[in-house]
């Protein structure tokens, strides 16, 4: 008998005053004891809803409308509250996506464990402390963590505590709902490692829900793929990897590649830079030289900007960052000041595409703020043409932004929900280009056409919530291009998008950069995308440049241990079933 047997399960969302929608449609599957199964799908596929349904955590307006969930032979879909509560010990547990917020901020970790032991009484009082110690050690945390409050722990530690708490129920089934999504790359990698080890040592059945096929294939022996509320494919990880049957699975899989490979290819993106120039590679000591002409050989090969509306404006200006340091005041009394950027120098030549990579807290976003004049450096200088960016006041900043534009990480936050697309694009056109009336509107429509949002008239009239994430990001890119800037700072432009949409947006960025001769500073933690759209790369660790040079060279033959660690943390579908 299977541990979990789901038959014909449907979940419906019934919000007041809106049409009911089916998030899960007639799902049927079973989980065998000790199996590690993945559930993959993009946002809106219903995978989390399914996870909440099988652990009976779905709340209004979601409702299980039909089907049975047999856990250990008993139907839990219709089980009464109190009986269900008792089932949770020794039954099924769940680790939530936002482990950050899954702990009660006013309760110490010790009390969190105490509450669970008290609720189920499955551990005798005398052994509870020892059991709690045992559990936190299993998730590789020090014993002292028990006396801490959630607010005193980092995101990764909190997610580990969540796992330990779920484990304290001694569950037969653990459901992990995007357990590492909110975490930093390196932490993500480490936490996934812990989950894999625990699954082996504790031998529970695990269901891993994730949008990232790479992470899932790496860990699981079987994968279910979900799309629009339906499980479209269910097979062993090897099958999924080698002969995916469903078109959707094939599409997902095609977007994975190893940035270390000689040739990296993703649908929709041109093959790039497999050749390596002999002078290409430089190490920390040479970071400043990275900007020297020899290193920007690839960049000079780019076609020059077509004659456009830049008449009377400085041509071909580089951004020169010279020995810049940014120190923030201590976050709390009694702590040390935070050095976010530590003596960084580089030059972004006209038409060049440079990646700035590192984990969160590496200082890459701070560097973007410094370059755009949003923040001022503590020491050092930033030049753009004749202007000293770090000394600019209001009017100067406005001038700078005519040339240096930004593409934001979160397309849901980068557009004002109350303004139409036309309004958003019209602002920079009116403010910078001097176009008015019909000419300005023509320019707006032209921009929409450039980023592929056609029919342009229709898109111009839309509000952000009527657009998908990918379409929003295209609007954001169009807005950045509106004033014909020379430089675009792209801060993780695709990290919030579904995998299938990333390539399209990246291709667009790369395309426009080449056609318009714009240089780009591409900030990311995702080395694959860096490999796809940049020629030069700088690896930042704790505010310092640890390695820089040509992207292909650095990623294929990394020299710094930190770069290697970053590369190692990338989920690789190819590792499926290798039992890592």
């Amino acid at each position, binding site marked *: 008998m299977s541990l979990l047997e789901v038959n014909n399960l449907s979940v419906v969302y019934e919000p007041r005053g809106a049409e009911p929608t089916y998030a899960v449609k007639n799902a049927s599957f079973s989980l065998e004891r000790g199996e590690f199964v993945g559930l993959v799908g993009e946002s809106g596929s219903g995978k989390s809803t399914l996870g909440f349904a099988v652990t009976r955590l779905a709340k209004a307006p979601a409702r299980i409308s039909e089907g049975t969930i047999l856990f250990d032979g008993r139907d839990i879909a219709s089980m009464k509250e109190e009986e269900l509560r008792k089932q949770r010990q020794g039954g099924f547990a769940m680790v939530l996506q936002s482990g950050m917020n899954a702990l009660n901020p*006013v309760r110490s970790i010790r009390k969190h464990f105490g509450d669970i032991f008290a609720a189920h009484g499955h551990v005798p009082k005398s052994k509870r402390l020892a059991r709690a110690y045992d559990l936190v050690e299993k998730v590789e945390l020090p014993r002292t963590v028990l006396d801490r409050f959630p607010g005193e722990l980092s995101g990764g530690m909190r997610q580990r505590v969540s796992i330990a708490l779920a484990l304290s129920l001694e569950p037969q089934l653990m459901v992990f709902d995007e357990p590492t999504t909110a975490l930093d790359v390196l932490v993500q990698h480490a936490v996934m490692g812990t989950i894999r080890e625990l699954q082996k040592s504790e031998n529970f059945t695990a269901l891993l829900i994730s949008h990232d096929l790479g992470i899932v294939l790496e860990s699981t022996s079987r994968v279910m793929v979900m799309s629009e509320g339906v499980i479209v494919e269910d097979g062993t990880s090897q099958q999924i990897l080698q002969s995916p049957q469903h078109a959707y699975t094939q599409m997902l899989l095609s977007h994975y590649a190893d940035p270390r490979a000689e040739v990296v290819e993703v649908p929709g993106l041109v093959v790039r830079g497999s050749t390596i120039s002999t002078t290409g590679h430089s190490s920390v000591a040479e970071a400043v030289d990275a900007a020297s002409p020899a290193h920007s050989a690839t960049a000079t090969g780019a076609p020059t900007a077509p004659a456009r509306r830049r008449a009377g404006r400085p041509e071909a200006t580089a951004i020169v960052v010279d020995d810049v340091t940014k120190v923030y005041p201590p976050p709390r009394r009694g702590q040390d000041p935070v050095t976010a950027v530590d003596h960084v120098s580089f030059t972004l030549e006209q038409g060049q595409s440079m990646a700035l990579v590192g984990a969160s807290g590496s200082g890459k976003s701070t560097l973007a703020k410094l370059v755009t004049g949003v923040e001022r450096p503590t020491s050092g200088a930033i030049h753009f043409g004749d202007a000293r960016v770090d000394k600019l006041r209001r009017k100067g900043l406005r001038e700078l932004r005519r040339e240096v534009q930004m593409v934001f990480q979160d397309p849901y936050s980068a557009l004002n929900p109350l303004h139409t697309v036309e309004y958003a694009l019209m602002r920079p056109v009116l403010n910078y280009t001097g176009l008015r009336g019909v000419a300005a509107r023509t320019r707006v429509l032209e921009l929409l056409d450039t980023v592929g949002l056609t029919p342009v008239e229709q898109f111009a009239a839309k509000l952000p919530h009527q657009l998908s994430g990918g379409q929003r990001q295209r609007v954001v890119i169009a807005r950045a291009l509106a004033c014909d800037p020379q430089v675009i700072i792209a801060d993780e432009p695709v990290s919030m998008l579904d995998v299938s949409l990333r390539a399209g947006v990246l291709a667009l960025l790369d395309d426009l950069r080449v056609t318009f001769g714009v240089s780009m500073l591409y900030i990311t933690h995702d080395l694959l995308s860096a490999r796809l759209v940049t020629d030069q790369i700088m690896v930042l660790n704790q505010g310092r440049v640890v390695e820089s040079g040509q992207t292909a060279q650095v990623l294929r033959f990394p020299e710094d241990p930190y770069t290697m660690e970053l590369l190692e943390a990338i989920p690789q579908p190819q590792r499926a079933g290798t039992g890592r």
Partner: protein
Amino acid sequence: MWYLLRKLGLLLLTAWAAITLNFLLPRLMPGTPADAAIAKLAQNGPVDPATRAAIEAQLGVPTGDVWSQYIQYLGNVFRLDFGVSYTFFPQSVSSLIMNALPWTLVMVGLVTVVAFICGTLLGVLAAWKRGTWLDTLPTLGGTFTSAFPYFWTALLLVFFLGYQLKWFPTSGAYGRESTPNMSLAFVSDAIGHAWLPAITILITSLGGWILGMRNNMINTLGDDYVTFAEANGLRSHTVAIKYAARNAILPNLTGFGLALGGVVGGSLLVEQVFNYPGVGYLLYNAVTNQDFPLMQALFLMITISVLLANFFVDILYGLLDPRTRR
């Protein structure tokens, strides 16, 4: 510790600002309140120069040196010397306040705390049982009663429970024949007189606490730690009390501090209806008799009391929220 010091510093700064506001208020007003006050005082007999200077320091004269008046005023405040009341001549303002303050502090203070606790509990229940009659009844009832003007509730209670049903005495804090002492008879007499004003304040302020706590609790019930607690199979009362309500009470405490001024203001009106010999009744008398020295001193005392109450709420908040201890 740092939190405590910061709050203490803030208390002192706010108290200073309130004292200064109290000094500036009569000076910003049209006319010369000091002259009016001295003229009224003169009806009781000659005004000696020291009294005159004190009144001028408190209420201001257009010709005087504001700075030296301010210094003198500050000194008077610290010695709790607010001059002489001419409504209740020759009693000093501070002795009048000292007689009135205990009545208000005990009655209003106690009722407010009781109302806050009851309202918070009902709010927790309403949010936990959302959509049932346990939610609808207190929510709608609370919405309605919190819209009652304090004095109107008081009038209705006096009319129905006092005059019509004669269940409670309708006026004063104790019977006419008793004199204040600590005997059991007097205390029970005083409690008998306190019932009506207390019920009034309870009825009118309860709704606000219920609604506030209900909203906070609904918010925390949607938080991830509540879902996770349910996923871990904690007993439902543990989830309700130690997870949802425990977090919802924090913003409710802040709300308590902010709403305190309103409750105190409302109870002043209640005292007036019941002729309850507290601060509110005294203030009403001072206002109707244009007794500015008494009025100013009372306003200051009321403000400082609310500031102190807020300070204690802050301390309580600090004890309840580990995040302030960092």
